[in-house]
């Protein structure tokens, strides 16, 4: 038995999905696509503003209805710079390295927005740096309608 070749069965599996964005998320994506604005939602109890908007405040367990605009500017809350090749989830291709990734606190929001961060000059990427979004010309109502955030002032 020992010297017989081991067989590895290989193949691809395709599982197509159509995920419902839901009524709350749709508000966000619609505004993003049509007006390049970011929408959050405020909890009536703790007054926190959540991005992306969702129906329930996970802390207070109450339903939220109060949409508020946030951003478009924000600050880097935390980040990293990817140096090893990773597959871009949208394209299935390797994303060229290095690239920035992190969490942005959009002005007026209490939760963070995950996105890519442009790193033309790595030294400017730091926690607290002021950033602005760069939008795609052709937008599809997706978080990728924002191409990335870029630092406009790392000293502020």
């Amino acid at each position, binding site marked *: 038995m020992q010297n017989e070749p081991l067989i590895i*069965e290989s*193949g691809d*599996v*395709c*599982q*197509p*999905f*159509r*995920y*419902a*964005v*839901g*009524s*709350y*998320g749709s508000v966000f994506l619609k505004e993003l696509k049509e007006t390049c604005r970011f929408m959050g939602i405020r909890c009536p109890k703790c007054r926190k503003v959540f991005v992306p908007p*969702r*129906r*329930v*405040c*996970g*802390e207070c*367990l109450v*339903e939220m209805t109060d949409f508020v605009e946030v951003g478009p500017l924000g600050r880097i809350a935390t980040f990293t710079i990817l140096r090893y090749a990773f597959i871009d989830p949208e394209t299935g291709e390797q994303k060229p390295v290095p690239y920035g990734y992190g969490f942005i606190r959009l002005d007026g929001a209490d939760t963070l927005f995950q996105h890519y961060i442009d790193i033309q000059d790595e030294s400017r990427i730091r926690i607290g740096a002021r950033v602005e979004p760069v939008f795609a010309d052709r937008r599809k109502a997706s978080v990728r309608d924002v191409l990335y955030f870029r630092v406009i002032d790392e000293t502020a």
Partner: protein
Amino acid sequence: MKQTAIIGIGMTKIDAQKPRDTFADMAWEAVTRALTDAGIGFDDIDNVITTSNDFWDGRTISCMAVGDASGVRHKNVSCVEGDGTFGAFYGLCRILSGAYGTTLVTAHSKGSESVSSLITNAAFDPLTDRALGLDALTAAAIQAGMYMHRTGTTPEEAALVSVKNHRNARHNPYAQLPMDIDVEDVLASEVIADPLHKLDCSPVSDGCCAIVLASEERTRKIGRKPVWIKGVAFYSDAYYLGDRNLAEAPALVKAAQSAYAQAGISNPASEIQVAEVYDAFGFQELMWIEAMGLCGSERAGTLLASGRFGIQDRLAVNPSGGLLSGHPVIAAGLIRMTEVVRQLRGEAGAYQVDDARIGLAHGINGICGQSHCVWVLGSEQ
């Protein structure tokens, strides 16, 4: 087993699709309904068990989606992957262990978001059977043929299950497919995989269900209309279809017998007034009824054809309309439990079974009903 009750139930309507709702939205709807039904708030919930399936949700760690909406943030929480009846079992154990006084159990899926045959094909072994392209439906068709061969059950008798259940669904505001059909309609519907016609098969649906379990002590404090857990058990059969006798359901026999023994039931056919069973396919309802000893020595098909098992019968089977009338996988078994609770409380309105005191709820995991969970519930302690 220490006395434990179901003190709250809630569910969304079962729909072909819910494009406005995310998993979290459905969970919130079901959970808040269950809390309102129980007359309690999130603070009364000691721990949470969510039930979901990563493949159906298209998401590894599918439980993550419903965390906030189920109120888990500052609580102990876990997730069962399987039918809601199994999730409820673990939720029950977390009370019986003495760790918690109440458990919120949720179960959800949105079948509309994927291609169901690809999802169930993924349950087949990648090394041996998957490439054959079997899915839950085609495998069930094989099982149907074997069952009908063993028992002599006819396509007309199997079709009657669909007729009964769709008609029952007309009285159930939560059901997806209320329909007034007859046997000819079922047999004239498109053949999906011989001998299964389209109307012999449950649809693929979206839905979410939630229940609140409570210990005897907590039930006395906060329970308004408790339904008591009399017995519960689950067993799994072998896995490969060829390792099983698909025409029999030994795992279900064992689970039912264990649940009956716990409940002190010696003659289930006469001691149970209502049964909500996992009718993913019409013939399976007959198979499960027989395996659970609900029709003595007679064939379930014969009895059904003679007029048994309707809402007015001394043992109503699937008065809610069953899965044939709406099948959100995962939530399905928890909805069976919810429907039995409604019956035992006398709250089933137009599909209320007379004098329902002992009820049975049934859930399944796996292809051709490999693994079964049986609950016996009672209106009295």
